[in-house]
């Protein structure tokens, strides 16, 4: 039982995040906290075990009680046996270096009897399904495995409530499914209350009993998922589909939506035969994206040609002889499991990462051996952690430094930043920007010198839907101007609306390469929600459905 009694929270010297929040959450539920970037999701989660304000600073008024224990009276460390908390990057919270000792750490510190400790570690290993990883070093685990180890490490204290901050945002679709399956098992079997914050609502919303939505105006709206999220900017694609087609109640699962689509009044009830007969590639698809979907029809020519690229780390081969061509004006998604070699490939293509074999040719030059100034005009790479690119104390200084580096007129970068995202205060520290703003700044910094090829490594981690839409618009504009773009991503919904071509990697090799529509709708793991609903057809975005189901609205 979690009770919020007239809770308000304000950061030290900052604005109020939320106020007047009163709610009692029944035990045994899965509660989803939704909202845009910077709306205060993480802060709300941290109030449950008292990390906010005991650890983060700021002012909390009102009272938060978990099973009768108030965070007003008890510090977070004494809540550990009641509330298990896993932060955004679980790997940064690891204390030891091996799976088993990580699970035992908290109990060792509290002097739990060795026999009881042994039993509880064994139970937890099975509960989160990591018994086969027990002897592994933590830094050799995949992100999904690390997430499950972090879950296990807090579960050994025997909490009644689990608080998880974006547990699946860094994971590939399959890894995310595994983590979510573990979480739902904890809710079903142990009756734990789980509170999750997540950007990728499409992954979680159908498991949620209750949703807390933070619209960003200081209020918290709670209720059933289908009611609270409807019409909000954070609604996942399935809900938007339901809303577009006027379904009531809106579907939360793909199965539900599929039934509605084929039922009376559904878009497939009349056109289903036409859809089946449609040739692959999508004759039904209308709108601006059709021409781009067929790369050969464009004016694009090959800008980057890589042959036999190999990357080796010690005995492990991360990239095994990859051949890849990137075409001007085309956006390519590089997809695959965590650890399939996507990042290593991008870094090798850019030239500053390792490359143990093969050639990369961009406009007749090899970016790895070209001079620094020339290399920058060939390939630009926006790394996964963009903060490592930024080293000034304010956005304004960062822009000025970029001007100097790129030899631009003073203020050019600042103007470009405004064109991309308006209204960023130049005195803000880059680390204080929202994820979307920081990504925009990094893009502007990297593109100060126009490059023929732009590579992005996992750009949507931590971006909300609005920021993703903005990113899509920016990247499409760049592609239309003739840049060849490659994006390594797990985000299938982003891929569906952004890319022209999908390259699928596994074990360091390219296993499939083709037009986005055929690739995404044909793959079980990487299919967007809408493609799953309209399975035999090749619809995959709302625009496809809109254009076909509501023909009078189409151009």
């Amino acid at each position, binding site marked *: 039982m979690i009770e919020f009694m007239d809770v308000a929270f304000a950061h030290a010297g900052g604005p109020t995040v939320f106020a007047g929040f009163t709610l009692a959450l029944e035990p045994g539920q899965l509660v989803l906290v939704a909202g845009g970037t910077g709306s205060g999701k993480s802060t709300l989660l941290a109030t449950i075990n008292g990390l906010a304000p005991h650890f983060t600073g700021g002012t909390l008024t009102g009272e938060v009680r978990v099973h009768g224990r108030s965070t007003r009276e008890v510090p977070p*460390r004494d809540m*550990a046996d009641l509330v298990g908390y896993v*932060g955004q990057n679980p790997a940064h919270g690891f204390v030891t270096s091996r799976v088993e000792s990580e699970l035992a750490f908290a109990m060792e*510190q*509290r002097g739990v009897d*060795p026999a009881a400790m042994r039993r509880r570690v064994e139970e937890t290993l099975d509960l989160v399904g990591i018994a086969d990883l027990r002897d592994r070093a933590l830094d050799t685990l995949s992100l999904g495995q690390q997430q499950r180890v972090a879950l296990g490490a807090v579960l050994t204290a025997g909490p009644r409530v689990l608080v998880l901050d974006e547990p699946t945002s860094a994971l590939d679709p399959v890894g995310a499914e595994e983590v979510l399956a573990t979480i739902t098992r904890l809710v079903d079997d142990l009756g734990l209350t789980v509170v999750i914050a997540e950007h990728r609502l499409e992954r979680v919303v159908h498991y949620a009993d209750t949703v807390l939505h933070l619209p960003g105006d200081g209020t918290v709206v709670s209720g059933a998922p289908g009611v609270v999220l409807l019409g909000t900017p954070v609604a996942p694609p399935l809900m938007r589909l339901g809303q577009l087609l006027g379904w009531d109640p809106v579907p939360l699962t793909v199965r539900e939506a599929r039934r509605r689509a084929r039922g009376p009044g559904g878009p497939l009830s009349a056109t289903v035969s036409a859809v089946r007969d449609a040739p692959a590639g999508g004759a039904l698809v209308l709108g601006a994206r059709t021409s781009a979907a067929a790369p050969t029809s464009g004016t694009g020519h090959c800008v980057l040609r890589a042959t036999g690229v190999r990357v080796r780390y010690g005995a492990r081969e991360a990239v095994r002889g990859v051949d890849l061509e990137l075409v001007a004006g085309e956006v390519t998604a590089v997809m695959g499991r965590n650890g399939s070699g996507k990042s290593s490939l991008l870094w090798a293509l850019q030239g500053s990462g390792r490359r143990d074999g093969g050639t990369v040719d961009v406009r007749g030059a090899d970016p790895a051996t070209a001079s620094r100034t020339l290399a920058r005009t060939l390939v630009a790479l926006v790394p996964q952690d963009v903060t*490592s690119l930024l*080293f000034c104390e304010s956005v304004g200084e960062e822009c000025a430094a970029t001007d100097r580096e790129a030899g631009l007129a003073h203020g050019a970068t600042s103007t470009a930043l405004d064109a991309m995202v308006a209204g960023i205060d130049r005195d803000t520290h880059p680390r204080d920007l929202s994820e979307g703003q920081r990504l925009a700044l990094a893009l502007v910094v990297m593109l100060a010198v126009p490059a023929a090829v732009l590579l992005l490594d996992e750009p949507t981690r931590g971006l909300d839907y609005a920021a993703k839409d903005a990113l899509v618009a920016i990247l499409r504009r760049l592609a239309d101007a003739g840049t060849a773009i490659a994006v390594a991503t797990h985000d299938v919904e982003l891929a569906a609306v952004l890319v022209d071509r999908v390259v699928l990697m596994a074990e360091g090799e390219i296993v499939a390469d083709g037009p986005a529509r055929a690739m995404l709708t044909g793959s079980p793991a990487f299919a967007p929600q809408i493609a799953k609903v309209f399975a035999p057809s090749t619809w995959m975005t709302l625009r496809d459905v809109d254009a076909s189901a509501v023909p009078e609205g189409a151009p």
Partner: protein
Amino acid sequence: MTVHPAAWWIWALVVAGVATATTNVLVLALAVVAICLVVVCCAQDAAPFRLYLVVAAAVVVIRMAFRLVFPATGGTALLTLPTVQLGPLDLFGTLTTEALVSGLAGGLQLAVVILAVGAAHTLADVLDLLKHAPPALAGLSTSLVIAVSVFPGLGRSVVDVRRAARLRGGRRTGLRGLRATVIPVLEGTMDRSLTLAAAMEARGYGSRVTVPRPSDADSRGAAGGPAGSRRSRGWAQPACVLGAVTCVALAAYGLFDSAWPGWAPVALTAAAVAAMVAATRLDRTARRTVYRPQRWTAPSSLVVASAVVSAGMLVLGVPPQIRHPPPVLLPDLTMIALLAPLVAALPAALPALSALLIRRRRS
């Protein structure tokens, strides 16, 4: 057939001590071979040992190069180089066999110490060893565990930031270049430390909520005293630990400084042990348990015994003129001096021995 991590560290320290007791080049070379043999046979992953090998080799080479650059007078001339006068210093000149051999012996002594520590590091997980620290030193051992696990992350973040800086192109040198690396690394480290601290706080580190311990009632009686007594003597324990560390450092220095009397390192080591015992006795309120503690097995005793017997043979069974021979390349040996380093290599036979035992048990 597992060996307790503490056994490997004791073995390594005793072998390192043996090296300081002799300047016989042959004995020292045999000790190097013995250490390498044990690592090759017993380590599951010998990769970390490579670094120690490189450092040890570099030390030997540098010691010998010093003898070449700064000549010693007297002895058999081996090689004559033109002398370079640099102010008050005479560089190069005549290189004598004696100087070269004493350089080699000094270098080998250090190499044995380095390799012994490297072997212990390779054979026994430091984290495993820290886990077995007495409960009273829990605070100290936990901070060491975290430092050891988190430190590699710092190195990785330096690499990441430098790689990202290269993406921005442009040549940043001097202060500006340093700033472009240092600031993101420090910011990242601060962020990560805060995340770690938050995670530890959320996981109940430092919590004073009592956990029922069934063993308390029957075995220890009233083990847990009032929590207040721990705080009142808070300064005494760190002082003891610091004193112990200082004693060990002085003892190590004394081993290599011939001006110190021979009993000084022994006395200092004893003082260090006493200080550590005092530190563990000062805090009886600490509650900490060890998950799956390693048992002290028969092989552990064998490992320790091999080092102790080897040290005893060398110190008691070998006459001083053999232990510290005149500087010739091939000094005299006695049978015991030849066997002593080989006894220290006995743990290398453990894996084969355990395989043999298992096979016999099956048949």
